[in-house]
């Protein structure tokens, strides 16, 4: 798998920003087939940082409802989330301004 395909997008939510600011943990949506070592390698290569630890989890699909008629119309997709802790003294510049 190409390393550029591993990281899909950074997760920017209240919780993710709290993790980033307090624990230097960055949260990403990653490829379903990516494992911890692949995520580590991708983050290190793409953002030029050193990763201390990666934790991943698979987000279960949630029921999706149609806003117009409030009927259940299926489920959201399953996706993988990765919590990436950086080594002391490193930070991802591209995500700092947020």
């Amino acid at each position, binding site marked *: 798998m190409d390393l550029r395909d591993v990281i899909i997008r950074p*997760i*920017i*939510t*209240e*919780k*993710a*920003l709290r993790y980033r600011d307090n624990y230097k943990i960055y949260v990403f949506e990653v490829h379903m087939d990516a494992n911890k070592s692949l995520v580590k390698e991708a983050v290190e290569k793409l953002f030029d940082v050193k990763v201390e630890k990666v934790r991943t989890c698979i987000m279960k699909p949630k029921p999706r409802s149609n806003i117009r008629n409030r009927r259940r119309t299926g489920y959201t997709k399953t996706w993988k989330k990765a919590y990436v802790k950086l080594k002391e003294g490193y930070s991802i510049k591209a995500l700092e*301004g*947020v």
Partner: protein
Amino acid sequence: MAVIPDERKALRELKLQIEKLKVLEEEDKVALEFQKFVEIPGFRKGKVPISLIKQKYKEDIKNEAIKSAIRQKIDELRSEYEIVSDVGIKDIHEADNSYEVLIEFEVIPKIELPDFTNIQVDRKIYKVSDLDVAEYIENLRKKFSEEVKVEEDREIQDDDIIIAKMEDYDKDGNLVSSEDVYIEYKKDEIDERLYRALANKKVNDIAEVKFDDGSRQVFKIQEIKVRKLPELNDEFAQINGYMDLEEMKQKIREMLEKEAKVRGEFEYETQIIDKIYEAYPFQPPSKFVINAYENIVKNMEVPKFNRKEEEKAFQEQVLSLAYKSVIRELILREVIKQKSIEVSDEEVIEYLKQRGEENPEEYIKRSKQRGQYESIIESVKMKKAFDYIKNLVRTKVIVE
């Protein structure tokens, strides 16, 4: 039309310099305002970081910050320039360290007053004749008249009332519209072609009017009526709320005399204002003119218009009236200012008495409670200012 110098124009343009540092300060404030209502998935309302808001709504925040900075600058200028209108932004140009903003607004123009003793006006005094009273009564009789059908085989005569079905055909002969119409058959009051077409016609006859563009109107006469006027006697006077015919004539004469006096006074005052304006023309703020226009329309019964041109002509007429009323007000205000005209309580009471208030003291008390006393004072001052002008202008009295 006379050329109005710039200082006597209400519309002004001004170039403002807004420093970029000031805009940056405003951006922080605007972003904080945005934070209150912005909703971004993953964040609770009001918890979105400022940095994210600034990044996501960069352009909106910048524009709003510039506007806010301009508004602040305008507020500072408002008292300095005595701005009386909304301020329009004509152009924003970004320079190195600042924004150059071209704004447009209206102020009360510089009003110069001429030497009133050099102004000469005619004052017409309208006399009410027996003929005027008779004409008024005749119109009153027409108002109370009864419409009576004539015999079927009688031809149309002058002053008849015709009820007909009118059909409008275009130049290709297609029927455009069809409606019942009410025609007062008078030579001076209806189109000459229609007058000729209807001549000597009877009920159920057809009259046709052709136009130059090929279109035509067809009138199918349904009814011919005559107007039966009521007898002019004491009974008629009583119907109109008078004791008898003599009293009716007397009261109508008094009313017409009052109207003639008001008309004469209005024409006299209009002439004076026109002469002052001609000497030193100025451009009143359009906002004042629009307000005056709206006030006039609000207080009058606006007729229904069949054609766009009629409506436009009516609007132009009212607008010209509004324009003149603003000019009059501004000139009088200037006289009040220059001559430091003040009014006493006695003068206010006298003014209210002239206006027909039975209990002026009580009226003053009530208007003070409602906060309308200032506008009464203003009216008295205006009247006093006009009296001051009238005393100075050279007046030639003409009796008509």
